[in-house]
């Protein structure tokens, strides 16, 4: 007997965001159905990947990451080229050196690092401050100016510093990462405040503040799912693509770095799976951009996404 497939009918879709310039662009979002439900609506773009580059590495850096980027850790430009060789869709420069409790590097140094990466690779860039709101507001305008015309994704804009960060993005033609503390209501409110400044809604990516596998990933799942349901039901202020910093979360936890726990299995494989699985889970919740630290975790993720992007196989 023929089985009739029950389909949900949606009136909205996730906004499609274009990053990068010239011949090197990446499109994300645009989904007209819940993740990978190809039979219900068009999913025009697969989740995009980025690999992190740090402007400076001091002190502790996990040996596995050091091995993957051997010889380039001191040079952001070379590091970025290595990311592209590994197959990343985008390069995510993290301005670690600007953290006030670390090197406390200034705006000009940060802009110089950004310029170095921009000259090394042609593809789309994500640029991330240190996450301290005041410092990001002080540093990001110079960085945005240095990358003028490259159509980057710049973060982090929060409810405290969004005016400065968004103004810089508007002035230099970038998109912005809107960061909220795992709260759907604050995420929506921040999008409204940002669009009130006349940044088009399709130039915002939402960072809901995820947790890694075992560390509150279910909360992140619920928030992302609610965002996607909002987009599909036509809520324009929840229709922006979601960005997930899976590398940052995964490499913080002991399950990734501890090498002395026999019953957890071999550390290397465990670490890669931890980062990859965090990303795969959140892709199925509805994430659109995934920022990794380890290239093999990213490649593992891509193999899973290859399978999930096959149409109507069930």
């Amino acid at each position, binding site marked *: 007997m023929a089985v009739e497939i029950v389909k949900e009918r949606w009136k909205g879709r996730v906004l499609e965001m274009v990053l990068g310039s010239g011949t090197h662009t990446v499109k994300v979002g645009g989904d007209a159905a819940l993740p990978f439900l190809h039979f219900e609506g068009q999913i025009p773009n697969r989740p995009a990947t980025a690999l992190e580059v740090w402007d400076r590495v001091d002190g502790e850096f996990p040996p596995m990451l050091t091995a993957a980027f051997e010889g380039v850790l001191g040079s952001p430009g070379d590091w970025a080229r290595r990311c592209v060789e590994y197959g990343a869709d985008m390069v995510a420069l993290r301005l670690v050196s600007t953290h006030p409790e670390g090197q406390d590097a200034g705006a000009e140094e940060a802009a110089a690092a950004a310029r170095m990466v921009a000259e090394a690779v042609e593809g789309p860039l994500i640029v991330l401050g240190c996450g301290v709101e005041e410092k990001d507001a002080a540093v990001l305008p110079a960085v945005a100016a240095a990358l003028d015309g490259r159509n980057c994704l710049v973060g982090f804009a929060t409810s405290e510093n969004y005016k400065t960060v968004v103004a810089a993005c508007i002035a230099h033609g970038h998109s912005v990462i809107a960061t909220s503390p795992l709260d759907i209501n604050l995420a929506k409110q921040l999008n409204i405040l940002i669009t009130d400044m006349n940044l088009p809604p399709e130039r915002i990516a939402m960072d809901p503040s995820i947790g890694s596998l075992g560390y509150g990933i279910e909360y992140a799942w619920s928030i992302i799912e609610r965002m996607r349901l909002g987009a599909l039901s036509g809520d324009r*202020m929840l229709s922006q693509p979601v960005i997930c910093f899976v590398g940052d979360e995964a490499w913080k936890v002991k399950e990734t770095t501890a090498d002395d726990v026999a019953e957890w299995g071999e550390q290397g494989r465990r670490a890669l799976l931890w980062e990859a699985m965090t990303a795969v889970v959140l892709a199925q919740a509805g994430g659109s951009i995934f920022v990794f630290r380890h290239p093999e975790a990213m490649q593992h993720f891509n193999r899973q996404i290859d399978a999930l992007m096959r149409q109507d196989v069930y």
Partner: protein
Amino acid sequence: MIFIGERINGMFRDIRAAIQERDPVPVAERARIQAAAGAHYLDINTGPDVDAAEAPEVMAWLVKVAQETCGLPCCIDSPHVEALRAGLAVHRGKAIINSTSAEQERMDALFPLAVEFGAAIIGLAMNEKGVPKDASDRLALAMELVANADAHGLAMEDLFIDPLILPVNVAQEHAVEVLETIRQVRMLASPAPRTVIGLSNVSQGAPERSLINRTYLVMALAAGLDAAILNVEDKALMDSAATAEVLLNKEVYCDAFLRVFRKPLVV
């Protein structure tokens, strides 16, 4: 919810005069105001002074003026089938036909018209015997509408059941029956037909019209109402609807929820 602006109706003095003189300015002005106030559809009614012979031409003219001004789809409102057809013929996008009753002759004429033009249609829970007294009789007529719509190949989401609310100052007992009807209509089919009410009728002839309208709208939304023909220019009414949508968990809360609602975003 779906807001259908009630104001382009020959019953109102400015629109009646505009129709008589074929002056597009007042019609365009009302279209603009209602679009800015958050209407999703504009109800278009030629009013009681336009006779059946003249109605098709007037309806086509009103639809064209309204759509050229704001581009919103229309809820084409007339007792005359030929006026409905004339309005549909010039309409761009998906219209709503307002309305058929559960009288067989009307249904046989109007459901095919909706299918022909790919329009949605409002079905009134009444027949030649008039408006039923209670919810169960309203539901029986709603079921007639559902069965006939289905027989004509109309998608259930394109059928809006109107349980018919009457003025509270003369027919107080109907208000709760209409709420009960709204609750139960969704069980008549799967997917369910949608529900609509002509809200302003509840306060007809009473003082405190705005208060009565917005109180009843919130009650009806809590019962599951999908759409209403109403005065979108009543800010307190629209704010109550926005708040109800949030409290019913249909919209995601944010501190600016009223502002988002008041400033319709162009999709």
